[in-house]
C-alpha cells in the first residue's frame, strides 16, 4: 500500500486531504490566506464549536446523538452569569468555569436519566430537552442581554496567548480561552484511550448487546456519558461569554447541526463505536475554515450556505464511499477457494 493510499484509507486522512485541498483553492483565490494570522483566526473562531464537538463526539461514540448540547451551553452560560452577578462577590475566573460545568452536568444528568435510566431514544430525548432547556432559560431566567459582565471575565477575555500583526497591519490574537479547549482535549483523550470508561463507551457504541453480555453496566455508563457531555457543553457556554464579553440568552442554539457536521466530518459515525478526539478537532477545523473563509474567496452571501452544504455532503460521503471501495477490493482480491 502506498503512503497516500494508507492516508486515504482512514476517515481522518480524507478530512485532512479535503482541508488541504480547500486551503489550496482558497490560497489560489486570495494569497492573503496563507499567513499565520489565518491559522490564529481559525483557532479562535472554531473554539466554541470545538468544545461542543468534543462533547458530541463522546455521545456519538457511544451510539447516541445529542442535539441539546447548545441549549445546555446557553443555559449554563446565562445561569452562571446570573448567579455570579446575584451574589456580587469577586471570584477567580476558574470558579466561573466550574459553576458553568456543574450546571451543564446537572442538565446532562436529565438527559442521562431519560436515555440511560429509562432507555428512551437519544434523538427524541435530546430534541425534547433542547426545547425544554431553552424554554426554561428564556422563561425563568430572562431574555435580556447581560452586557455588564464582571471584571474578571473582561480581564480574562483580554488575556492573550499569542498576538501577531498580519500583512496589512491588523492585530490578530489568540485569547486565553483557547486553553479551555486544550485542557478538555487532553482530558478527553486520556479518558477515551486509557481508561476503562473510554473502552466501555466504544463497546456500547459498537454493540450494546455484546457490551451487556461482557458485563458492562450500560445504564450507569450512559448516565455518566451524558453528565460529562453536559459538563463540557457548560464549559463551551462559559467560553462563549469570554469571547463575546456579553451573555445573550438567544446565542448558541442554532449551531448544533454545524457541530454535529464537524464531528461526523471528523470520522465519528452516527451508528456509534467510532470517533476520536484528534479526528473531531480536524473536522471542526475544516467546518470553521469553510464557514469563515468563503467571504475571502469572494463567494456571495446567498451562495455560502449552498457551498457549505455541498462540502459537508462531500466530506461526510467520501469516507463512506472509500470505505466501501476498500472492502470491495479486498473481497475481489481474495482467492476464490478461500
Amino acid at each position, binding site marked *: 500500500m502506498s503512503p497516500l493510499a494508507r492516508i486515504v484509507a482512514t476517515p481522518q486522512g480524507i478530512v485532512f486531504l479535503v482541508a488541504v485541498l480547500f486551503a489550496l483553492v482558497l490560497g489560489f483565490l486570495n494569497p492573503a490566506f496563507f499567513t499565520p494570522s489565518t491559522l490564529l483566526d481559525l483557532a479562535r473562531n472554531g473554539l466554541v464549536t470545538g468544545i461542543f464537538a468534543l462533547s458530541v463526539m463522546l455521545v456519538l461514540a457511544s451510539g447516541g446523538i445529542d442535539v441539546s448540547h447548545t441549549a445546555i451551553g446557553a443555559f449554563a452560560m446565562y445561569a452562571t452569569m446570573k448567579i455570579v452577578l446575584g451574589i456580587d462577590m469577586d471570584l477567580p475566573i476558574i470558579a466561573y468555569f466550574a459553576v458553568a460545568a456543574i450546571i451543564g452536568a446537572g442538565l446532562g444528568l436529565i438527559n442521562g436519566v431519560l436515555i440511560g435510566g429509562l432507555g428512551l431514544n437519544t434523538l427524541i430525548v435530546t430534541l425534547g430537552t433542547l426545547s425544554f432547556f431553552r424554554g426554561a432559560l428564556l422563561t425563568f431566567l430572562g431574555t435580556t442581554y447581560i452586557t455588564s459582565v464582571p471584571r474578571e471575565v473582561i480581564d480574562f477575555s483580554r488575556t492573550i496567548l499569542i498576538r501577531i500583526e498580519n500583512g496589512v497591519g491588523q492585530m490578530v490574537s489568540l485569547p486565553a480561552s483557547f486553553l479551555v479547549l486544550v485542557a478538555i482535549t487532553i482530558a478527553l483523550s486520556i479518558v477515551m484511550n486509557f481508561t476503562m470508561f473510554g473502552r466501555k463507551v466504544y463497546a456500547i457504541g459498537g454493540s450494546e448487546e455484546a457490551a451487556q453480555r461482557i458485563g458492562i453496566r450500560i445504564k450507569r455508563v450512559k448516565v455518566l456519558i451524558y453528565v460529562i457531555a453536559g459538563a463540557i457543553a457548560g464549559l463551551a457556554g462559559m467560553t462563549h461569554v469570554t469571547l463575546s464579553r456579553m451573555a445573550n440568552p*438567544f446565542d448558541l442554539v442554532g449551531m448544533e447541526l454545524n457541530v454535529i457536521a464537524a464531528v461526523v466530518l471528523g470520522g465519528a459515525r452516527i451508528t456509534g463505536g467510532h470517533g476520536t478526539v484528534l479526528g473531531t478537532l480536524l473536522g471542526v477545523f475544516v467546518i470553521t475554515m469553510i464557514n469563515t473563509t468563503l467571504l475571502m474567496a469572494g463567494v456571495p452571501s446567498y451562495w455560502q450556505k449552498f457551498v457549505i452544504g455541498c462540502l459537508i455532503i462531500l466530506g461526510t460521503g467520501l469516507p463512506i464511499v472509500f470505505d466501501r471501495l476498500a472492502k470491495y477490493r479486498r473481497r475481489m482480491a481474495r482467492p476464490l477457494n478461500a
Partner: protein
Amino acid sequence: MVSKLGKLTAGVALGAALFLGAGAITQAQDAKHTIVTVVKLSGIAWFNRMADGVEQYAADTGHDATQVGPASADAALQVQMIEDLIARKVDAITVVPNSPEALEPVLGKALDAGIKVIGHEASSLDNITYDVEAFDNAAYGRHLMEALAQAMGGEGEYAVFVGHLTAKTHNEWVDAAIAYQKEKYPDMTLVTDKLESNEQQQTAYQKTKELLRTYPNLKGIQGSAGEDVVGAALAAEEAGLDGKIKIVGTSLVSVAGPYLETGAIEMISFWDPAKAGIAMNKVASMAIEGKDVTDGMDLGVEGYNAVKLDGKVLYGQAWVDVTTQNMGDYDF
C-alpha cells in the same frame, strides 16, 4: 376569619363603587377616553419605557390611558387580552402585535364593536383605524447612511450587515442606504454583498474579521440587527482598529453601551418606545373624537411633527441617534 371576610366584602363593595363611579364619569364627560395599550410582552425594558410614555400621556391629558401585556410574547395571550377589552367596552385599543395575522380576527371584532384600533410595528394590519410607525424604512436607511458617510468623510470602502437575508425591514433599510450612497457619495464603495449576521454577535464578529482581512482598506460598516454593530466593534477593537473603522447601525444602549463608550461604535440609532406610546395614544384620541389625521400633520410629539400618511399608516421621523455624549439618557 369573620373580620377577614368582612374586610374582603368591604373591599369588593368599595371596588365596585369605584368602578361604577368611573363608569358614570365616563358617561358624564365625553372628553375622558379609556385607551388601553396592548404590548407584545410586559416586564422588559423596551415596553417598560413605552409604559412610561403611556403614563405620561395619561398625566398630561387626564385621559384614562393604561398599558397591559402578556407575561410571554405570545399572540394567543394578546388575543385573550383584546377580547377582555372588547367586553369592557374601552374607547380605543392600541396594540403592538406579536403576530399581526393572528390578531386580525379579534381586531376586526373590536372595530365592529365601535372601538378604535391603533397599531404599531404592524403596517400590514387590515383591521385597524390607523397604524403608527416610528419611521419610513427607506428614510431611516438613508439617515443611517448619511451618518456613516459623515463619519467616513464621504469616501472609502464600506460593508453592510443584515440580521437575515430574508428580514424584510433590514433589507429595506440597507437597500435604501446603498441607493442613497450611490447617488450622493460616489466616492464611497460597497465592497461586497449584504452580509448576514444571523442576529448573532459572534457571527458578526467573525464576518467582520474576514472583511478586514479581505479588504484592508475598509473604513466603514453599517449594521442592521442590534448585535451587528457590537460584533463588528469587537472585531475592530481586537484588530487594533477601533475608531479607525467607523461603525454605525441600529442597536440599543443596553446592548452597544460598552463599545459606544470606548468609541469603537460611532453612533447607534433606534426609536424611543415612550414617544411611540404617546403618539399612538394621541392618534387614538383623535380617532375617538372623530378628527381626521392628515398627511403632514403635527402630532405634537418629538419625531412625529410632520407625519406622512400612506393609506392608514402614519410614518414619523422618530429615530433617535445615540453617541457617547447622550448614551446616559437611555436605560434600555
